[in-house]
């Protein structure tokens, strides 16, 4: 459980990797399961004035204050209402617990590193810089996210 960052290199070095997958809009996305602390429905989000646009606000995560990132904004998708499927995927990044707000949780995907293909320059209009790679499923593809890129500073 030492992996706090997922890079292409250490993906290839391990035998099998697991991804927690979820939908944002119609896109199936996945993040390295080792980074995921929990998935919750804590959607009582306090907005933070003057915060960057992709930051939804902060939540009370069992007594700690955690930032929630709106994946839709990051990926350039139109905003959507929260509904009963909306979840926070809490990931670890640089010693901080950060929530990724996603539309719907899907399965856990277990694959070998060689089943990951290089990422195209974009998928459905989403910038390829956020991707570690893609994995082709029978009827769709799962885009594997580079969490650090998603959380990186922008504006």
């Amino acid at each position, binding site marked *: 459980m030492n992996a706090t960052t997922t890079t292409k290199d250490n993906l290839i070095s391990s035998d099998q990797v697991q991804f927690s997958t979820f939908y944002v809009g119609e896109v199936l996305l996945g993040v390295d399961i080792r980074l995921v602390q929990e998935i919750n429905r804590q959607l009582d989000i*306090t907005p933070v*004035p*003057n*915060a960057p646009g992709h930051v939804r606000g*902060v*939540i*009370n995560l069992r007594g700690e204050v955690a930032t929630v990132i709106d994946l839709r904004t990051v990926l350039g998708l139109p905003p959507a209402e929260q509904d009963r499927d909306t979840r926070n995927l809490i990931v670890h990044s640089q010693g*901080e617990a950060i929530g990724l707000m996603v539309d719907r949780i899907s399965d856990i995907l277990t694959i070998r590193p060689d089943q990951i293909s290089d990422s195209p320059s974009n998928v459905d209009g989403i910038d390829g810089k956020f991707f570690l790679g893609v994995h082709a499923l029978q009827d769709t593809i799962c885009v594997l996210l580079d969490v650090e890129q998603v959380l990186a*500073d922008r504006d």
Partner: protein
Amino acid sequence: MEDNELLADFVVEANEHLADIENQFLAIEEAAPNIDVNLVNEVFRAIHSIKGAAGFLGLRTVNDLAHNLENVLNMMRNEELTPTSAIVDDMLKGADALKGLIEDVENSNGVDVGAHITALERIAAAAMEIGNEPVSEEAVHAESSPSTLAETEPAAELTPAPAAPTGVPSDEELEAAINAKLAEKKAAKAAAAAKPAETTPAASKAIEPKAETKPAAAPAPEADAKDAAAKSTPEAQIRVAVNVLDSLMNLAGELVLSRNQLLQAVSTEEKTGLEAISARLDQITSELQEAIMQTRMQQIGTVFSRFPRVVRDLSSKLGKQCDLEIEGKEVEVDKTIVEAIGDPLTHLVRNSCDHGIELPEVRTAAGKPAKGTIKLKACYQAGKVRIEIRDDGGGIDPEKLKAKAVQKGVITPEQAESMNDREALRLIFAPGFSTAAEVTDVSGRGVGMDVVRTNIAKLGGTVDVESEVGKGSNIVVTLPLTLAIIPSLIVQVGCDRFAIPQVNIAELVRVRDSERSTKLGRVKNAEVLRLRGQLLPLVRLREKLGCGPAEGPVQGNATGATNVIVVDTGQTRFGLVVEALHDSEEIVVKPLGRHYKNCRKLAGATILGDGHVALILDIAGIAGDLNLRSDEELREKGADATTSAADKEDRQSMLFFKNNQVDNFAIPMDIIARIERVPVDQLDSVAGQEVLQYRDTTLPLMRLESCISASPGDFAESAYVVVYDVRGREVGLIAPELEDIREVPTVVDTVTFREPGVIGSLVTNEKTVRLLDLFELTQMSHPEWFSADSEPELNEESLPPMILLAEDSGFFRTQVKKIFEEKGYRVADFEDGKLAWEDLDAENHSYDVIVTDIEMPNMNGFELCHRVKNDPRFSSIPVIALTSLAGSADVQHGMEVGIDDYQIKMDRDKLLTAVQNFAGQAQQGRTAGSYA
């Protein structure tokens, strides 16, 4: 593993020994050429302990260096060597190097300290040469090429490339080395009793190979070592007093008990006991919190102790003469603050030395002593810590600052025009204002002062500057006691709640719908609040923070009034408009994640009782963001006719309230502890006494109509309770309707309406208002509280104590005189300081206590006190200054001229106690004196 533990213990212990060594060396230097044997002994012992332990642990370099230091100290204490600046210099450098070694103890054996050792050896050798003659600086430094006589020094042997410059050992040096050896032997003999085996060759040899395997791992240049020593090293361990631990243990025990009770109550579903248990839990938690905070408290002296060295080094470098006086070392603050305050304070102290204190010749020319003084002082003030760095240097010229600021484009000429001196002084904190060289030209300060201010603001503190040209400057830093838990007010802005730290809150103002047009206004494009003749800029938080509008009516604000929170950053004062005020809570500060690093308006977040996250507002950040101009600029001139007309009279801040439509009353603000608003149905009556249940205590209440001739009060659904202290108890006076708090001249008619409980009457806003004496009121309604009053302990054989009273306001003079005379004192009263001084000077009476007002014509209280304290005839007479609302600047000034105590004019209780104490002292002193 055991070794590591030993080593860690050694480091802790050595650091303790070294902690104060700089100052001790400096004290030795100061006392030179005399030798304080006890002091030298103390240092000697400290170094000796380090040496012994280092020898035991095989830390050869440490051992050698310590040994040489010890050697020199030993000669000093045997009076074979007279300390000089040069010698102390070398010793300080040696101690620095020693600190450096201990900091990185693992690699210490590889560090080259040859230069220090040679320097110390030379001192010892020179001393031996001239026998007991004082060693002149030349004698020490003449031998400019430090030799690295390998055979005499094991440390030098170890170091592959000695830092010493080239130079063939001359005969003299050889001789010096031999002498050093002799001295060393002597020192060793002296120390032998304690550590017999410390330098045995066998031990050294055993360690040698080990040392060689680490070839000079960390060649620590001297500068580095110095830096490391100067930096505050965050401690991984902290010492806690045993009694604090004990109380923690007790509290933990109580907590467990309460938990058991709670579990039991819950499991049996018995609801009756729950309230008591929750109250108990509440209390234990608070106590526990306090006790745990206590463990984090550290003395600020740990930071201060580095400054004597800083000042010494800097002033000698700049060719200035400078003394550092330190006061308040024992003030305790949270360790995070102790760790973080070091750098800003160093900056400020360096600044005072660099730009504040003038060169000796400039000082003598200005009629000041050649030696400048920097005073560093810490004290508690209203739940905060106040640190002052005061110098008696040249001061800062506001005009020059303005000119510079205009030139640099920091402000516009128009702004400069409208700036007063105080604001101009604050320019030194403006970002981009200046760099060192440029400011030195205008004899100001400003080396990165904006950085200092930012750093202090990060800690939740403020920094301000006062200065008088020619007299000196004073930088005042205020800091919170702790950072982790802060009392805050929870407010509602739009649909969100925010926390505002109470340290920033000056007052809360509620503008009713009907008053909006008179109290709120616009100046140019800025919204302002009219408050007691001043215009405060207003910030509508909802717009500034971009919060959504509240859904539905806001809870806690049904009437549609405008709630304004007047906040103060120490620099500016302004009003925040919020939708509603909620509770005041002690909140635990949680940091915000990295995504918010650009949110200057926020200081962090906290989790409220209901689990919601609330953001903590950073008031300084908001002010900075909005580029608010300070209130003085916006002061409304002549808005309040009485303000300007009555400038010279004594003014008193009063609370005005109505009992009903006819009866208007006033109470001096100074004696009011706080004001509570309570629903009328919460007022309770127990055994004929009206009380208010308040924060788990019972507050006795009084109604005016039951004490003095007044009609019964008209009550709406809520009333105000004015809380004040009498005899250590809190008492509440019911005030049905509050009007205002205003500063009014104390022109009081003490005849027309005089009755017990009423001092007199004054006219304000064309209404006659009766001024209440809360003390007398309480005395009438609760005489039993005062029955145990002790009369002043008057010596039967002698006359009652004699008080000199100087006060220009006739009203106060009569009041205060009456208070004293009622207690049996003799009082001589004077209209100003000059008359008082003339009487004192003529020695008509012998006074036991002097009680004086500050603001008086002809001669003010400061001047009077100054004269009294500087006259040997009177210097022992205690001086109590009377003031309405003591301003901290006044207090400071007062302390300087020797005022012994400050009392508030209208607080009779405290004033009497103070007089009694001082008079007692004085009389005792006199009796004792006459027998002696």
